[in-house]
């Protein structure tokens, strides 16, 4: 299957054509955020305060990389379990984020928010941290350095592979794939 190339910042039109099961390759800038960063961003939104980074049209990747060894852009950088971010995701998507990327199934609130905000959930391959690291060209700390691996990093990626796991029309690869083989 041919992969669709996504180059952030993305518009609604860029993601509305995607369907669960489509292969994508992400190139350009993406941002990392996992549990602790989500908690902080959601608190800022709730208090009406300015965020440390403009997320309109951006892709958020749920990952906490290992530190790079000398001479490397990054250490291992595969996705973490997305379901832990479910409670924050409607808020994050309301900021104009067009794609979130992680691993594993997610709840109905996320499906509804993807629909309402015209966004998609991408799945990267869990446990393939070494393979995915080769698609990351550079990393730059953007916010919350005190969180260590949980800080927000800006990544430059090239042909970073993922699958459309949940589209903005209710499609869900985990549910549909399982129904096909279960």
């Amino acid at each position, binding site marked *: 299957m041919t992969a669709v190339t996504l180059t952030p910042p993305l518009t609604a039109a860029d993601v509305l054509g995607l369907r669960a*099961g489509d292969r994508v390759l992400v190139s350009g800038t993406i941002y990392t955020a996992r549990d602790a960063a989500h908690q902080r961003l959601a608190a800022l939104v709730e208090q009406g305060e300015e965020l440390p980074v403009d997320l309109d049209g951006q892709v958020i990747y749920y*990952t*906490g*990389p*290992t*530190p*790079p*060894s000398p001479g*490397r852009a990054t*250490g*291992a*950088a*595969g996705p*973490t*379990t*997305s*379901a832990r971010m479910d409670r924050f995701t409607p808020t994050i998507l309301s900021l104009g984020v067009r794609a979130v990327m992680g*691993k*594993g*199934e997610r709840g109905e609130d996320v499906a509804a928010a993807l629909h309402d905000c015209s966004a998609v959930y991408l*799945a990267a*391959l*869990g*446990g*393939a*941290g*070494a*393979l995915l*690291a*080769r698609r990351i060209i550079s990393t730059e700390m953007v916010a919350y350095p005190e969180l*260590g*691996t949980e800080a927000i990093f800006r990544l430059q990626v090239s042909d970073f592979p993922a*699958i459309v796991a949940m589209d903005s029309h209710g499609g869900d*690869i*985990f549910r*549909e*794939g*399982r*129904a*096909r*083989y*279960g």
Partner: protein
Amino acid sequence: MREVTAGQITDLVAKLYQDANFFLPDEVTTAFEDALTREQSPLGREVLASLIENAGIAASDRVPLCQDTGMAVVFAAVGQEVAITGGSLREAVDIGIDRAFREGYLRASIVAHPCFERDNTGDNTPAVLHVELVAGDRVNITVLPKGAGSENAGRIAMLKPGDGAAGLADFVVETVDMNGARACPPLFLGIGVGGTMDQAALLSKQALLRPAGAAGADAGLAELEQEILERVNDLGIGPGGYGGTVTCLGVTIESYPCHISSLPVAVNIQCHAARQAGGVL
């Protein structure tokens, strides 16, 4: 009495913990290759091929297989004819994990307090250390870096004796049904049955140390392992959770006698990055 120094233990733990994070055991790669021939989903086969490629890249680039380099679970079987000198076993192990973390550029994933501040300890310590005093004059150490994605998917139940083996199998299948797709399938399942609640949990972790495909001692349990394997694969979760016929690569059960009124069952889920390394001093 034969002496083993704390420094020797530290050196061994530091080496093993890095090896485990960079080099996937051969039997796990073999299990991926076997699964490639059975998996019916094209996307599932792509995932399996990527996992084989990932293991190759991790070893050649010396980059961890997975960014979750784990909480360090360390099993130490210490011969009762050995004297450990120059420091405590506990310190020797934690210093070894700290060194592995720094030398191997592994991830600091441990917080000091589970409920409150959750401040990172910064050196991936402490380890979860299981010590057993055994016969002989050797120290046998096995490390198992355990990622949270799969560890969080495990469950424990105090079943009724009347639930029997069928109840055990139902509980395990239900656990994978609920949590399996987010635990990085294809999975390995370690099951502990018997003893007390704590003993069953420990047995389930120890069960993960038995290599995939290696049969257990008990014929009845081996049959139960096979039955659970088939039922879990029938769930259709598949590699990566994208749907497929290979959800599980191995089921191992360890058992222990238990009270007339009890049937404790623990299931410890292991992701496909089934890392472990062992050595003897």
